[in-house]
C-alpha cells in the first residue's frame, strides 16, 4: 500500500520516513542522511527530486548584479534612516498609542502584487484560482473553480484547494521582513463570501528548522449573500498545525515575527467559488 506523505507525519511516522530513506541509498546522486533531507527544500509531490550538486545551482549575471547592488543599498539606507525616526520607520508615539493597524488594504492594482494566489494546479490538480480587483478598485476578489479529483501521482490522496497568501516582504539584501504584531491581539477581516467555510492561516518565523512548516490556523465561515461580513479573531484562538496535521503540543502564536497570512478553501467536489476581501486586515 502506498503510504502517502500526509499520513507519515505522526510523531512515530516521521521516524518511519527517515528509516525509509536510509534503506535506499544511491551512490550516483548526493543523499544527505540527516534531518535536512526531510525538512529541506519542499519537493512538490509527483515531481522528481532535485538531485543537482550544490555548485550546479549557482548562476552568474552581471547587469542584474549592478541593479541589485543599487536596490539593496538603497533599502539599507532607508532602514537606517527609518530607525532614527522610530520602530519600523514610524514615529514612536504612533507605535505606542495605536489601537488598530491597517495591515493590508486593496486600493489599486499595485496592492494585488502583495498577494500570491495558488491552487491545486501546482501539484497537478484541476482547480483554478484567479485574483482581480473588485468594483470601485476597493476590494479584491478571489474566484475560480475547485475540483477535488486528486492528481494521479501515487502520493496525494486529497485535493482541491485554493489559497490567497500574502507575499513575503523583503528587506535589503533579500532578508525576510517580519511583521511585529506584538502590540495587538485580534485579527479583523471584512469579507464577503459565498457560504463556504474558509481557513485563515498565519505563519511565524521560528528558530528551529523543525518548525519550518508550522502554521497557526482558524476557520472563517462565510454567510453568503450581498452583505459584508466582519470578523474579529483573537490571536489566541489560532491552533498550531504542521504540514496539515494538528499538533498535540499546542502553544499560542508568537506575534513578534509573523511571516505571512493566508486564507484557503477546500471543497469536496467540483465547485465554483468567489471570495471578496475588502479593504483591510486590522488588528
Amino acid at each position: 500500500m502506498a503510504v502517502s506523505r500526509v499520513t507519515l507525519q505522526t510523531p512515530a511516522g516521521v521516524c518511519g520516513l527517515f528509516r525509509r530513506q536510509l534503506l535506499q541509498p544511491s551512490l550516483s546522486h548526493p543523499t544527505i542522511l540527516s534531518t535536512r533531507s526531510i525538512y529541506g527544500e519542499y519537493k512538490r509531490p509527483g515531481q522528481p527530486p532535485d538531485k543537482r550538486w550544490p555548485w550546479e545551482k549557482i548562476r552568474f549575471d552581471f547587469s542584474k548584479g549592478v541593479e541589485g547592488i543599487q536596490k539593496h543599498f538603497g533599502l539599507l539606507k532607508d532602514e537606517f534612516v527609518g530607525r532614527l525616526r522610530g520602530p519600523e520607520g514610524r514615529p514612536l508615539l504612533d507605535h505606542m498609542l495605536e489601537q488598530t493597524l491597517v495591515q493590508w488594504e486593496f486600493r489599486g492594482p499595485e496592492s494585488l502584487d502583495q498577494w500570491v494566489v495558488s491552487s491545486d494546479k501546482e501539484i497537478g490538480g484541476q482547480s483554478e484560482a484567479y485574483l482581480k480587483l473588485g468594483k470601485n478598485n476597493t476590494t479584491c476578489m478571489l474566484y475560480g473553480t475547485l475540483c477535488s479529483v486528486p492528481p494521479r501521482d501515487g502520493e496525494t490522496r486529497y485535493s482541491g484547494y485554493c489559497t490567497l497568501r500574502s507575499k513575503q516582504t523583503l528587506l535589503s539584501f533579500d532578508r525576510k521582513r517580519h511583521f511585529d504584531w506584538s502590540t495587538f491581539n485580534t485579527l479583523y477581516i471584512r469579507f464577503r463570501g459565498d457560504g463556504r467555510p474558509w481557513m485563515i492561516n498565519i505563519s511565524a518565523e521560528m528558530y528551529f528548522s523543525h518548525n519550518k512548516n508550522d502554521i497557526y490556523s482558524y476557520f472563517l465561515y462565510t454567510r453568503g449573500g450581498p452583505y459584508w461580513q466582519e470578523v474579529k479573531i483573537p490571536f489566541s484562538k489560532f491552533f498550531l498545525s504542521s504540514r496539515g496535521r494538528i499538533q498535540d503540543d499546542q502553544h499560542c502564536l508568537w506575534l513578534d515575527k509573523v511571516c505571512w497570512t493566508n486564507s484557503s478553501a477546500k471543497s469536496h467536489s467540483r465547485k465554483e467559488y468567489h471570495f471578496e476581501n475588502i479593504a483591510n486586515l486590522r488588528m
Partner: protein
Amino acid sequence: MKITRFLMRTQHAGWITLFVKTPIKPSCFHAALLRPPIPRICIGQEARWIHCGSTVYKDKPDNSDLSKLFENETKAKSLVTHDDLFERTAKDAKNKASFNRVVDVFNKQDIRRRGHVEFIYAALQKMPEFGVERDLAVYNKLLDVFPKEVFVPRNFIQRMFNHYPRQQECAVQVLEQMENYGIVPNVETKVLLVQIFGEKGHPVRKYQRLMYWLPKFKHINPFPVPFELTQDPIDLARFSLTRIANDLDAKITVYQYPSTDVTETGEEVTQPHIVGIQGPEQISLLAKHNPNRPVFVEGPFPLWLRKTCVQYYLLRADLVPPEERVQDEPDPELVGPNQCLFYPWQIDLDLSRDMGDDFSYDVEDVEEGPVYAMCMAGQGDQATLARWICGLQETNPILGRIPTVFRLESGSRELQTAADVQHDSGQNSQSGSEQEHIIEEEQLHSQRMKQ
C-alpha cells in the same frame, strides 16, 4: 527446518514465547479448533495460536485439516480483490443493510480474517457509494473486522517498534475517514480499539486526538447548515434567504408557488417558484429612494450550502454620489438645547477612538449601494423576476415610479427578449430594447415606466 520457518514467518518478538510453548499435546489443538469462531476473551496461548500464522498448526499432522488447506490453496489461484464482494452485493441495493451484509460475509468466511486490511481499505472506499459514510455504527462494525488481541503489544520491545504497522495504519485510516466526515467516535470505538491494538498504539492516540479536537470544532460555525437539506425548493429558498438576509426582522414572502398548468392547446406551462425577502430597514430605504435613479435587478449569485448551490437575485441601487445625499434632519426634541441629558440621542464623543488611531483609512470609503430586496426563483429569466418586482410593489408602492434595469448574467441560458415579457398589471409602453451581449456583464436596458 521448523526453527527457520518460525523465524521467517513471525515478525515480532512473540516467537520467543511461541517457541517455548511448542511441545504441547495435540488434544489442545482440537479443542481450540472446536471453539466458537471469534474468541473475544483471551484464554492464554491457545487463542493466540489460532490467529497467529499457520506454522505450528502445519507441523501437527492432521489429515482432514491439511486437505482443506490444500483445497483452499488451489482455489485461490486467481487474484480476487475485495471490491468484487461489494460489487456483487451492490447489484440489488446500495444501502446500509447490504453493506453490513458484506462485512458479515467477510467475517464469517475466515476465522483468521485473512486479508482484512485490504478488505477494510476497500470498504472505506465503497462507503460513500452505499451512503453510510456518516454512520458511526458502520465504522464500529468495520473496526470489528480486525481480530482482537492479536495486535496488542505484549512487552516494551513490541511497543517500541510499531507493532503490526500495517494494521495500525489501516485503523488510523478508518479514524481519519471519520474525521473527514466530522463524525465523533463513541465509547464503543474506544473499547474496540483498545481490545485490538492496546492502549498505547497509534489508533488509540488518533482516537484521543479526535475526541479532543472534533467536539471543539463541531459547533463553531455561526451559520450552520444541516447535513440533510430539504429538497423542497420553497423551504430551501426560505432557509437560504434567512441565512443571507442578516436581519431577524426580515419577512419572507412566497410570490408564486411552483405549478404546472396545461393550457388549452395542450402545452405544459410551468410556473417557477418565487420566494422573496425584505426587511423593514430595506423597506424604509426604498421608500426614500430617489425616483429619478434606476434600481437594478442583479443576479444570479451563487450560494453554497455544503454541496448544493442555490442562486439568488438582488434588487439594489447604485451608490448615491455624496453631493446628492440628503441628510436626515434630526428631531429637534432629541438633539439640541432641549434634549434629555440623561438619555441623549446622539453623543458627539466617539468613545472608541484613541489618540493613536489611524484616521486616514476609513471603511466607509468602500460603501456600496443599498440592497433593497433579495429573492430566489426557479428560473432566472426576466419574466419571473418581473413577477417578483410586481409582488414587491405591493409593499413598496414607490417601485411603480422607479425604472428597473435588469442586469442578468445569462450564462448558458438565453435571455428572453423584451417583447416576450408580459406584465400582469398590463402596463403600457415598453420601449423596445436592444440586447447587448457583453461577455462580462449583460445589461438588458428595458426602461419600463410603471404606474
